[in-house]
């Protein structure tokens, strides 16, 4: 009786652990399938001509350079707008805030902002910046809308980074007669910088891959924007339109692969910074 129970127990254990293994394998398999499929079908497209020339004709033959330029432009601008605000906001929450009603409201707002569907953020950008403030479809309007999307993400990673700086390092600074701001600016922020940068890079990846926000704020016109007041079509929007219209599938695969490579590059850079930092701190 007892031995049968034990057999039962170990069998259940084995089966259950097997199922858990399967779940993990399925997860990795999903990623592998997507990556492999996009790489296999897109790699032939990745020629200098594809990357650096303009598309032409109804079938969008040729390259995708303007969409790359527009993507980089709007991503960098959004990061420039949102990073300082988000980092300082995180400094407030991690270092200055005293638990209370105001902090609760700020946290609830940040969580809400983080969960706003990007399509809603797109319509917000359209109503507020494109039409409300008369910016028209422009890199600026898209960057502002993206900035609100990224704000809570960078705030969260920065706050975690700041909180991860050990208390006793702060004490060392206060114990030497440093003021609060001196301690924050000279000790805490420099110590947290690698992790802050990691968060910022991952957020940039999110911005670069965003579709719903930019399509309603930058438009879909193929243009290589120079001024922030100009419109443009980003790579995700280009991919969406190519796919929806069913034209030029090879170009779509090439664009998809470039997007995936960009995300991969962001991810690996972030990973590298974290691991290098870990080694330095021993």
């Amino acid at each position: 009786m007892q031995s049968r129970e034990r057999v039962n127990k170990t069998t259940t254990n084995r089966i259950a652990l097997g199922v858990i293994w399967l779940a993990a394998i399925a997860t990795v398999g999903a990623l592998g399938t997507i990556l492999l499929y996009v790489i296999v079908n897109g790699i032939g497209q990745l020629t200098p001509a594809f990357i650096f020339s303009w598309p032409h004709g109804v079938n969008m033959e040729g390259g995708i350079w303007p969409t790359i330029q527009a993507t980089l432009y709007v991503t960098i601008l959004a990061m420039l707008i949102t990073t300082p605000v988000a980092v300082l906001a995180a400094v407030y929450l991690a270092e200055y805030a005293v638990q209370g009603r105001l902090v609760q409201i700020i946290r609830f707002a940040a969580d809400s902002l983080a969960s706003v569907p990007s399509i809603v953020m797109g319509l917000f950008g359209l109503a507020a910046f494109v039409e409300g403030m008369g910016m028209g479809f422009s890199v600026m309007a898209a960057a502002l809308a993206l900035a609100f999307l990224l704000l809570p993400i960078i705030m969260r990673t920065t706050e975690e980074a700041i909180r991860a700086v050990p208390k006793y390092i702060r004490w060392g600074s206060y114990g030497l007669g440093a003021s609060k701001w001196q301690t924050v600016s000279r000790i805490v922020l420099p110590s947290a910088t690698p992790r802050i940068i990691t968060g910022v890079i991952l957020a940039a990846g999110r911005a670069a891959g965003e579709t719903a926000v930019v399509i309603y704020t930058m438009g879909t016109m193929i243009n290589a924007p120079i001024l922030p007041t100009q419109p443009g079509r980003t790579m995700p929007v280009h991919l969406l339109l190519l796919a929806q219209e069913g034209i030029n599938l090879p170009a779509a695969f090439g664009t998809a692969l470039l997007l995936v490579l960009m995300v991969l590059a962001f991810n690996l850079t972030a990973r590298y910074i974290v691991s290098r930092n870990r080694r330095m701190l021993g």
Partner: protein
Amino acid sequence: MSDTLASHMTGVIPTDNHANKFSVQKLDFFYGDFNALTDITVGIKENAVTAFIGPSGCGKSTFLRCLNRMNDLIPGTRNEGRVLLDGNDVYAPGVDPVDLRRRVGMIFQQPNPFPMSIYDNVAYGPRLHGVRKKAELDEIVEASLKRANVWKEVKDIMGRGGLTLSGGQQQRLCIARVLAVEPEVLLMDEPCSAIDPTSVQKVEDLMAELKDRITIVIVTHNMQQAARVSDYTAFFLQEVAGEPAHLIEYDRTASIFTSPRDRRTEDYITGRFG
């Protein structure tokens, strides 16, 4: 009970030619509603080493952190009573705790070098307080590292990260860092509990060298260490969990260790509890 103790206490504060650097009068300390320390009255002698001993949780570190207002950094704490530094109340309204902490330096249990080079660690304090010239900084850094007994080990690796040093070297680096801002008082919160024995020796040596010019207060679990390094010893005890801790006995170290007046002190130093 604490009243009688206090009157008893004033009688035993050692009187000799040392002046009081700190004099603490009827200090009570609270974490929120919890009264952690009560009725501490003590005079800390100038240019001498005073040791605070007692079992864990007896409030000796908390008391130490009252002296340079480090407890201000913990929300929800407050105290009653007075802490006078050279006769001036450090908790008086308007007093700048930041400047107080420059004058009353602190060494922590865990060596806490900043994640920057050895040189920058020591130069941090002087830079905070406005020293900009490279030559002047070099001079301060070298002098401080020498006083902290760590110069020989680091003089060729000044650009290396402070965190790459061994624990004991890190602690001496932290001492150099504090010395660089020329404090009048050095508070040491179990400075030797996380470092190797050779470094302990070096730290104890440098305490003896420093006390000519600096008032040192050390919190330690190690009674041999208290006996070795200190001139005066204060024994703290929390007798009942949840009740505030208080000062049981304070006297010249020699007297405390050879002829304690209080039964509880004797029990503690002979190892009967704690």
